[in-house]
């Protein structure tokens, strides 16, 4: 190692010499760059000296000043404009007007292991510019994607520091790793919540199987490529972005007040047990628990970056600080990020560089069940009694469902989460023999997370007592690395353009978790929180870990003829440790794509309708190695539950409680994509339409097996299902500039997805899921061949029994007035399991977004609207009742409470009799439309700011999620969940809106 560092310093020294040499006989060239059409000046145009890496950018007024040899040629490049090369010829003033090019055609997009001109892409790749992400003042880069890309569905989870769930073109895989693959500068991640949004230069979403296929092994759920900001040529630029905001619950659910609650509870107990629980129901308004525990929370965000480059090296250094309070008391998340990247041009042809990110975050967590607790807490309980003790539900015998005082839950909860991560890569890139580029990169990702919770001794209410303090410490470590070597050949000859890529990677993922706990740790100061202070006999420790490795080879050929005919083909071969020892170690993932740029044909020359017309089609295969480690190896369970006691003494026990398949194969998806790209009116209007059809074959799937096999979970993993996602995507964008100086763009996208399980090896046997937390473990979702994944399944409610006579005459003779009437679907005169039916689909069919930007003089306005439709939610919060949970005001106002009062809402005895069974009353539409982001900015006039040596100063105000429309009667229709268990709303973090004021400053 030492020797290597010595060599690196030699290179650095050498590069300094080069820099000095370059400045030898230069003259200063100044000028202004403007738009060839309307003569407006163009900022941030790259001005480079041809044949070197020296260059700068034009300032906000389009001016540049560069030191260049008198015989040099300057190259002006700007996205959307045709590149111009102008010889200096010893002139000191050169003004340039750039001709607008067909923007779509020249745009370069990042694809797997390389870049391509947008026009050459034959798959479906969507690109989002970094500024569109950082501009939103979003705390997480993934949530900023919401509504931006057709076919990409982002489900926010709410809690600060947690990443939203993202699905690309529907649920692609069910078992194991269902995360999208994020590739940040060549390193693979499951989540990018560690990234400071301001560090992102661009994001590419690979949507179709052919473009994903080059990432074969992990591409089944889609691939998101993130490129980070590198140093730009020119003098050091200092950017500061800061914002401060508040967050508050929006679209809250109104619950009953004390009086109403008592009324409903008495009605329920009267029906259930012929008695009144609350003899004196005069409680007045009582406690509003949401008001008590929720708050308006602050969020602060500061980011500063310095970047620049000289001829031989570039740098980018950034620091970020985020301090976000949760909307519940105590909940807080702080994140510090630091990122440094350097690139060195060692000598002509060889470039080396690295980037490294350090992240440290600390969160003070909210109790995991607090949202359910707030929903169910009885309003008749005071937060505190007059003597200062906690209000106790036990005095009213409210029972299990509402036995706790949420304030006490909050007060005695103490859990912190500390997370550290160091990640990055080093690379070397060698260009040789004119057309070849060899690149090697080594990436690492090392992180440690520590969750520490302390339960003190307390006696709050009858149900909330702790007579021993408990300290629990969980530590999770990840040590991952990835190596990548690629060789690219790139050449244009005659009408042909050819790029050939060959590459190899190896990667290893190691995870280690240790859980430890102990009792009676004194807690007078944080320094006491060590298990060495716990009672020796109470200390407990377990650990577990996993290792998996993969080695891969891949290649790709891109061929273009006359810029009209495009052909791409790739093949990736992966071997993964998960499949070692089986017959299917290697997975092969081919792809092929073709494109026809019709608008470049001779016969299109004279037409004026299309400024761009391109037809493309592709097919590819992707895989998923995200299966459990050694899935077909049966292991011995030696968990504590198998400890036997003889004469009171523990004796270690073991057992084999699983069945495994004899062999397991790669899960493979094959997808087809057909796209049409159209540009009209000089590309001011662009329209893109895609059809896709992707089938996941031999999906790794847990199928249900007979309970009589006696396994722990009655499931067997294996390659046992085929399913399909098929749909359309439409994107239309319009951008223009009016004569009075208003520039604007409007872009709309819609994704339509249909998900269907084609085949399950278990035949017609369903996979029932979703029981967690619902009354009597009701399972409201069902996955079965012929339906979408995880459909809601249960009884169809046709009305409410009004009278005892109605009950007697019905198929539910054991019902009571006020109970649900279920449809007797098979007409056999009794209501049983055979009468159940499909009640709704938790997979969104439509997801859409409308994104707009307006700029007029110094003002800019962004308005983003986003929504989903054709989706259902199971209102588990309302359905789950174990006792006397609170009711929503909506339920109270509409409930059945005597003949004729309601034929749709049941009585307050909502979980009594067979009312608790999964049924259509709890299934609601999950459609919503949201004003995702609105932002108004004002850039101070340069004449003012230049006095302070400020290049640009912009102030802005924005609001996220400020306006939401939905019919759902819970907090948020964005529910999430694992694929077979999605859309069941119980204990979901409430939806909140964020209002920020911020500033962008450039020196």
């Amino acid at each position, binding site marked *: 190692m030492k020797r290597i560092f010595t*060599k*690196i310093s030699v290179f650095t020294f050498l590069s300094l010499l080069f820099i000095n040499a370059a400045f030898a006989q230069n003259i200063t060239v100044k000028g202004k760059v403007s738009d060839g059409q309307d003569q407006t000046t163009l900022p941030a145009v790259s001005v480079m000296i041809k044949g070197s890496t020296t260059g700068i950018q034009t300032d906000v007024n389009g001016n540049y000043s560069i030191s260049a040899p008198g015989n040099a040629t300057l190259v002006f490049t700007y996205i959307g404009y045709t590149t111009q090369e102008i010889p200096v010829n010893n002139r000191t003033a050169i003004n340039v007007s750039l001709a607008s090019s067909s923007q779509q055609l020249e745009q370069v997009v990042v694809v797997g292991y390389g870049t391509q001109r947008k026009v050459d892409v034959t798959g479906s790749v969507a690109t989002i510019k970094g500024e569109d992400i950082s501009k939103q003042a979003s705390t997480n880069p993934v949530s900023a994607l919401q509504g931006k890309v057709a076919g990409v569905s982002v489900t926010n989870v709410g809690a600060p520091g947690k990443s939203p769930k993202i699905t690309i073109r529907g649920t692609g895989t069910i078992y194991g790793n269902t995360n999208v693959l994020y590739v940040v500068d060549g390193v693979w991640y499951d989540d990018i919540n560690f990234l400071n949004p301001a560090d992102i230069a661009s994001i590419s979403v690979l949507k179709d199987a052919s473009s994903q296929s080059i990432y074969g092994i992990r591409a089944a759920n889609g691939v998101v490529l993130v490129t980070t900001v590198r140093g730009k040529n020119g003098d050091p630029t200092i950017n500061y972005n800061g914002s401060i905001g508040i967050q508050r619950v929006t679209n809250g659910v109104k619950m009953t007040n004390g009086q109403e609650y008592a009324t409903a509870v008495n009605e*329920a107990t009267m029906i259930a047990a012929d008695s009144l629980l609350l003899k004196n129901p005069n409680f007045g308004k009582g406690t509003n628990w949401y008001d008590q525990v929720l708050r308006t929370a602050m969020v602060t965000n500061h980011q500063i970056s310095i970047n620049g480059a000289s001829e031989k090296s570039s740098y980018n250094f950034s620091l970020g600080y985020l301090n976000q309070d949760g909307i519940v008391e105590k909940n807080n998340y702080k994140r510090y990020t630091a990122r440094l990247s350097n690139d060195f041009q060692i000598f002509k042809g060889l470039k080396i560089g690295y980037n490294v990110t350090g992240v440290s975050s600390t969160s003070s967590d909210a109790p995991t069940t607090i949202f359910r607790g707030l929903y169910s807490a009885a309003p008749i309980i005071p937060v505190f009694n007059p003597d200062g003790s906690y209000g106790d539900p*036990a*005095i009213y*015998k409210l*029972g*299990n*469902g509402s036995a706790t005082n949420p304030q006490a839950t909050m007060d005695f909860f103490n859990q912190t989460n500390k997370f550290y991560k160091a990640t990055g890569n*080093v690379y*070397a890139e*060698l260009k040789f023999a004119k057309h070849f580029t060899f690149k*090697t*990169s*080594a990436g690492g990702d090392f992180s440690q997370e520590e969750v520490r919770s302390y*339960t003190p001794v307390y006696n709050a209410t*009858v149900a909330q*007592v*702790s007579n021993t303090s408990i300290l629990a410490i969980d530590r999770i470590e990840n040590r991952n690395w990835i190596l990548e070597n690629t060789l690219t050949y790139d050449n244009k000859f005659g009408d042909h353009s050819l790029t050939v890529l060959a590459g*190899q990677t190896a990667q290893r993922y190691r995870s280690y978790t240790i859980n430890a706990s102990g009792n009676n740790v004194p807690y007078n100061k944080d320094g006491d929180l060590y298990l060495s202070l716990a009672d020796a006999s109470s200390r*407990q420790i377990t650990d577990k*870990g*996993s*290792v998996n*490795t993969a*080695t891969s080879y891949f290649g790709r050929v891109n061929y273009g003829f006359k810029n009209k005919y495009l052909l791409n083909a790739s093949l990736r071969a992966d071997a993964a*440790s998960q499949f*070692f020892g089986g017959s299917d170690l290697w997975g092969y993932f081919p792809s092929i794509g073709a494109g026809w740029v019709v608008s470049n044909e001779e016969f299109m020359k004279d037409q004026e309708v299309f400024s761009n017309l391109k037809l493309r089609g592709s097919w590819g295969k992707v895989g998923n190695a995200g299966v459990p*480690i050694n899935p077909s190896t*049966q292991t*011995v369970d*030696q*968990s*504590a*539950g198998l400890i*036997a006691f*003889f*004469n009171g003494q*523990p*004796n270690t*026990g*073991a*057992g084999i*409680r699983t069945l495994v398949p004899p062999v397991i194969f790669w899960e493979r998806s094959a997808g087809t994509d057909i796209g049409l790209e159209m540009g009209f009116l000089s590309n001011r209007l662009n329209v893109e339409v895609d059809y896709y059809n992707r089938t996941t074959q031999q999906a790794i799937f847990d199928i249900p*097996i*007979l*309970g*009589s096999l*006696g*396994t722990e979970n009655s499931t067997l993993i294996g390659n046992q299902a085929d399913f399909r996602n098929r749909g359309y995507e439409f994107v239309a964008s319009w951008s223009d500039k009016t004569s009075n100086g208003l520039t604007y763009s409007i872009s709309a996208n819609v994704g339509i997805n249909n998900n269907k399980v084609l085949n399950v090896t278990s035949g017609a*046997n369903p996979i029932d899921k979703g029981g967690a937390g619902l*009354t*009597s473990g009701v399972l409201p979702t069902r996955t079965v061949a012929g339906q979408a994944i995880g459909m809601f399944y249960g009884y169809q409610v046709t009305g409410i029994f009004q009278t005892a006579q109605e009950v007697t005459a019905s198929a539910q003779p*054991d019902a009571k007035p006020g109970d649900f009437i279920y449809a007797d679907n098979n007409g056999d005169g009794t209501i*049983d*399991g055979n009468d159940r039916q499909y009640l709704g689909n938790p997979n969104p069919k439509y997801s859409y977004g409308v994104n707009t930007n307006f700029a007029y003089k110094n003002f800019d306005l962004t308005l983003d609207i986003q929504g989903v439709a054709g989706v259902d939610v199971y209102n588990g919060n309302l359905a789950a009742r174990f*006792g006397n949970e609170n009711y929503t005001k909506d339920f109270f106002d509409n409930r059945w409470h005597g003949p004729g009062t309601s034929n749709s809402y049941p009585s307050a*005895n909502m979980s*009594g009799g*067979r009312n608790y069974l999964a049924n259509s009353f709890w299934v609601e539409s999950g459609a919503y439309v949201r004003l995702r982001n609105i932002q108004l900015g004002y850039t101070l006039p340069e004449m003012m700011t230049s006095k302070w040596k400020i290049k640009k100063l912009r102030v802005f105000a924005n609001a996220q999620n400020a306006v939401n429309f939905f019919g759902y009667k819970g907090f948020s229709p964005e529910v999430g969940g694992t694929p077979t268990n999605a859309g069941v709303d119980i204990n979901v973090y409430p939806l909140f809106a964020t209002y920020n004021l911020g500033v962008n400053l450039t020196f």
Partner: protein
Amino acid sequence: MIKTNLIQMKTYFNTSIQRWCAVGLLSTVLLTTSCKKSFLDIDPQGQQESEQFWKSQEDATKAVNGMYANLRTWNNTAFPALAIESIPSDEADKGSTATDATFFNLYDTFTVTSTEGSFLGFWTGQYQNINLTNQVLDNIPAITMDESLKARYLAEAKFIRAYSYFRLVRAFGGVPLRLTVPKDQTEYNIPRATKEEVYAQIEKDLDEAASVLPQAYGTNDIGRATKGAAIGLHAKVAMYQQKWADALSLTNQVMTMGYSLFPDFEKGFRTQNKNNSESLFEVQCELLPGNKDASNSQYSQVQGVPGVVGGGGGWGFNVPSDALNTAFETGDPRRDATILYRGETTPQGDKIPTTTPNPRYNQKSYVPFSMWVSGFNEGAQQNVKVLRFADILLINAEAANEMGNTSLALSSLNKVRARARGTQTGILPDVTATDKTALKTAIYKERQVELALESDRYFDVIRQGRGTEVFGPKGWKAGKNEIWPVPDQEIERSGGLLTQNPGY
């Protein structure tokens, strides 16, 4: 194959770009990591492969232990068990607050259908026991180990298998009879055996177990299945089939094995008197400090008194019914030992709050409040009584009466009454009836009060053929409710190979 590739790569690196140090660094990393013998051959981490199990005596011991541990799971001792074996009887009601876990009412009113979750829970719970016993019976014979210990382990497994099948056959009638671990998927789905076949297998297992199991164990093994447990359970199984001669001879055998009724009925149920002189078999439960997962029995918690400050929070289910409350003869001390009354003070000094939602709770599962440790299930240390000597005496009495041996019947019955009576006088006089029917009625009655809330009553009444008489008013129907429905999901997953019981 991988190795070859790596060698190629090594050559490639060496010849073309070795001279650049940065690249050299990377290739060094690459080669050192991937030149390991097999980069892709990763062992399971922290998990023993089953292929490496079943090799030693120690493995055998652990596997046998695991089987016992499984008997205390939720499915075996908590909600599913109470729903199927206790709450539908006339001795217990649902309990807790009116709106809590109302699905129990469907069992109590016999309106339940095959999709209700406790059927599957109970079914699966028993088959989980059976799977563990079959693992032992399949694999231990090949282990080289102490042969007498091996024989004993196999016998213990047979006892637990028989016990689990007995609970299944009582509840569902004939069930799929799995006696080995399925070799492959072709053996996954098997039809129901007949009730007779299942009983025959239970008796075979118990016979074989009894012939090997010791009469008692050393201190470190107290709680394992004994010869007495096997014979005693066999007697009960015989009684359920009305094989009176067998029941009589088997119980006679047990009565010579040194068991005796524990003098104080109430104290016999407290944790310090686990595995006492009266006990033939108990499910062993403990509160192991620092180990919540091992302290996983919720048997006592789900039946415990709710709303007790510092008492850990019982859930208050399976509460004594009015019928049970009035079933005891005047002055029978077993009433106060079986039922915790709202407001009473227990012999251990606990005050049952006057504010509890139900007037009565199960005292047989009661653990004094002071024994609760926060973070643990309340009453995790309470054993579940499976078979007591009192039951054996009552089986003996009933079988003797059926076989015409009235004096033996009376003597066995009166032993049970005498213990209950203790030192008190004027209560629980000896039964003197000699009429077969009257004596039978007296024995039935004695079973009701002696074994109350021990999950015996429901199937006992059905066995006696008195379902309509006793449970009829609650909705029980002859010809249907003698057995429960096979779980709907199980029939569905069998692709219809499993058939449903009549009436469901």
